[in-house]
């Protein structure tokens, strides 16, 4: 008979989990493995709330296993390291993002692209190599293989830095891979949420001109005055979109709701690139003619490898970039999820785990 989540590992742990596709989270007793030779154990201080957490607790992708304990923007302090761990020590400020395991032998793993490993293990809702389910960062402690631990620099606040571990790398990686990171280039950012607002910040740090493309005119002032965007296009305004035809070197599209690609293809210059990091459920229509006429492309990207995640964190620390957050107590999480459905947050909820995750 298989063991319960409380019994399957030797170290007691506590968090909040969803029990079914209602997605409602509540206190949950479980356990973490003992710290292995290559493992790092840390006390969780903060955890960001990602839209993926919402998709997963409600089983919107049809792949959820319950009880489901989300959270893949996890930041905290090391409490124990395994005997073969040299890069981290007790007391270090660290983070874990979306992945905690991989095969370490395929072409992707060998190229520091653990995120594209066909056997990658996700931080939650995934089967680990020992056959147990992974549980994420809405919890008091975590144990992860050192390869998946990111150092959080001293000058980076852990609460506002945590969201970079998913939102940050998800936009940083494709901006670099697709070459949308050179001074003087013009970048469009579709959607001003957790991913979008960080894309604006990275875009400005790369020295680019940044235009936010959004359905909400009420985000314009924020975008320009606080986030530093250079321009704002309301995507449903035909005249504005027409006037911006062929002006952008690339667009990063963070929106996962259903939306049309054709207008975005029109916005980029010849040789322009549209990078999708949000995953709409309904495949959009792709008009092929404009791609041929302008040698344009539409590509996808999914988080980033561990080496690049560390590079991104270090870059963010150097440029003073963190997420704009609303810190919440653990027991606010269900309300936060309801607000997240309506995109009612500027721009990431972060759970104050250390101060509010208490056993009942």
């Amino acid at each position: 008979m298989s063991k319960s989540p409380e019994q399957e590992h030797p170290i007691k742990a506590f968090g909040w989990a969803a029990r079914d596709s209602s997605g409602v989270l509540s206190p949950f007793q479980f356990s973490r493995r003992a710290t292995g030779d290559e493992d790092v154990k840390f006390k969780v201080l903060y955890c960001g709330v990602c839209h993926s957490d919402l998709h997963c607790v409600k089983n919107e992708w049809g792949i959820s296993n319950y009880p489901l304990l989300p959270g893949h923007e996890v930041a905290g302090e090391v409490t124990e390291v395994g005997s073969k761990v040299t890069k981290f020590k007790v007391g270090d400020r660290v983070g874990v993002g979306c992945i905690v395991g991989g095969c370490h032998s395929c072409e992707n793993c060998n190229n520091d692209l653990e995120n594209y490993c066909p056997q990658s293990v996700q931080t939650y809702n995934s089967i680990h190599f020992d056959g147990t389910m992974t549980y994420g960062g809405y919890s008091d402690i975590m144990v992860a293989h050192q390869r998946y631990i990111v150092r959080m620099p001293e000058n980076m606040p852990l609460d506002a830095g945590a969201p970079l571990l998913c939102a940050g790398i998800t936009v940083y990686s494709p901006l670099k891979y697709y070459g949308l990171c050179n001074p003087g280039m013009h970048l469009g950012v579709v959607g001003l949420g957790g991913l979008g607002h960080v894309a604006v910040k990275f875009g400005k740090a790369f020295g680019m001109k940044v235009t936010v493309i959004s359905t909400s005119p009420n985000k314009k002032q924020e975008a320009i005055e606080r986030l530093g965007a250079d321009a704002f296009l309301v995507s449903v305004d035909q005249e504005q979109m027409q006037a911006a035809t062929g002006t952008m070197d690339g667009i990063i599209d963070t929106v996962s709701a259903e939306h049309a690609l054709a207008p975005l293809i029109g916005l980029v210059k010849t040789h322009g690139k549209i990078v999708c990091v949000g995953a709409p459920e309904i495949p959009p229509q792709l008009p092929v003619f404009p791609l041929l006429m302008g040698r344009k492309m539409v590509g996808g990207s999914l988080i980033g490898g561990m080496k690049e995640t560390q590079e991104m964190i270090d870059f963010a620390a150097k440029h003073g970039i963190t997420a704009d957050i609303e810190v919440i107590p653990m027991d606010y999480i269900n309300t936060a999820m309801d607000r997240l459905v309506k995109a009612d947050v500027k721009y990431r909820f972060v759970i104050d785990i250390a101060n509010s995750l208490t056993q009942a």
Partner: protein
Amino acid sequence: MAKSAEEEHPQKAVGWAARDPSGVLSPFKFSRRDNGDNDVTIKILYCGIGHTDLHNLKNEWGTSLYPMVPGYEIAGVVTEVGRNVTKFRVGDKVGVGCMIGSCRSCDNCAQDLENYCHKGILTYNSAYYDGSITFGGFSDKVVVDHNYVLRFPDNLPLDAAAPLLCAGITVYSPMKYFGFNEPGKHLGVVGLGGLGHMAVKFGKAFGLKVTVISTSASKEKDALERLGADSFLISHDPDQMQAAMGTLDGIIDTVSAVHPLQPLINLLKTNGKLIMVGAPDKPLELPIFPLLMGRKLVAGSGIGGLKETQEMVDFAGKQNITADIEVIPMDYVNTAMERLAKGDVKYRFVIDVANTLTC
């Protein structure tokens, strides 16, 4: 009152043109401009027939102007050069492809990417600088600005080399731009027609492993034994497609009929690239999840700039690459168009203009 096609220019010319969207071609008298200081006059010996000619003749894209003289895979000899022309001499074996003009001042033109100029002028069905409509290579002569003339190496037969000027460059340009010219990579080619068979030849010349993906099992033997492809996949065979998942670095998709992209995206490895060079007239469904999961991309490409076209022709000369052709007389052209609509040609019709164009 606007001049007729016969009167608008000083040099008499003859060709075959379509008068309406039936696309049926018949003899047509028209005229060419005098050879200007920057021009080259070419006696046309051969002209290839591309699927785009068919689309245009039948006004499938809604942009056709009649009468229309198609043809943009032109090969012939120089009969006159303007006094500013130094690159060509009378008697040279030359060709003209899809473009005969551009703005020459935009970013794209400045980077030898005239094919992406917003003011590009096509060899036919386009408005020239002087406002007249351009007429293409299904004709006895053409007058072209020297910047848009290509030189053929002596060792290439003109009839089989003519299709390089559109089919050749259309696949060569994206193969280079997207890095599918490095030995060892594995390239898929969708569709084995005029474009597809050129992609197989260039792919093998670049040292790639090449897999042809086709709906027609009947093309497999030719693909493997004559064209040199390494393997062949029937696209509607789920077992074959499943077995080939995640094996290709890139795919050149030459098919202009509407077709599903997901099975092709699945064939790509991580970081794989699906390059469309055929233009379906309706949008295709693009599944985004598979692009994210493997950092894959879908891109388009249209012909190539003039400098690159010359580079491609020179490369073909060195490697002895030409198209596989069926030479036809001018008066067979309507039948050829019907066969082309069914993909019934291995793999390009070329009109023997010099010997059969009579008016």
